[in-house]
């Protein structure tokens, strides 16, 4: 299946990009996607296997580690929110 992955704020800067489009096999939850991303290289490991909190949204709704992924999903990863 194919998912679009978006990166925001500090993560976008650390990765030097704002999105990836990934063809995935056997990656069927947010946590599995996060582990998959952590293995893509040093910058990805810093973001996805580092000590800072990683929030996720699937199709613009806040998600948790076990949220299932489906073909065509848009998954966004971002740090803690600091609006207002």
């Amino acid at each position, binding site marked *: 299946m194919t998912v679009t992955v978006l990166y*925001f*704020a500090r993560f976008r800067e650390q990765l030097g990009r704002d999105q990836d489009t990934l063809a995935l096999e056997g990656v069927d939850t947010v946590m599995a996607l996060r582990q998959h991303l952590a293995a893509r290289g040093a910058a990805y490991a810093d973001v996805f296997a580092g000590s800072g909190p990683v929030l996720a949204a699937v199709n613009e*709704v806040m998600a948790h580690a076990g*949220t299932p992924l489906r073909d065509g999903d848009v998954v966004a990863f971002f740090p803690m*929110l600091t*609006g207002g």
Partner: protein
Amino acid sequence: MSVDTRISSDALPVQLASDWLHASAGASGAVVLFSGLVRDERGDVSLLALEHYPGMSERVLAELAQQVMAVWPLQRVLAWHRVGAMAPGEVIVLVGVASAHREAAFEAASCLMDLVKTRVPLWKRVQGAGGMQWVDARDKDLAAAARWADRFPLPGQ
């Protein structure tokens, strides 16, 4: 009952927000309007920039306003948030309500601000002496938002 929410890269017009809230006068006995401003931190901050997740930020802000409307007896709820670059003294966010009763008005406006700070996908950075720095989430904001957790359960799939 009426809700007006927006995310905007233009300056937020305080007077327009105030006028809209006061326009339910007669039914409403109380209007509370909160303005969040860019603080200069005694000269340490020269610029603030807000990034958002377009699409999601608008939707979450609108949902929060609707949820607040469902918890308190309100005639009007307004939540306008600015994104992009701002100078010290400029308005980042306007949150206001009109209600028959002042207790409800104060509580609802305060709650909506707590939720806006912690649930809308927005990220702040500031330009100071050390360059552009991302702002960390404050424990105080998370604690303030946690007060409403039972009445405003976090969405999630």
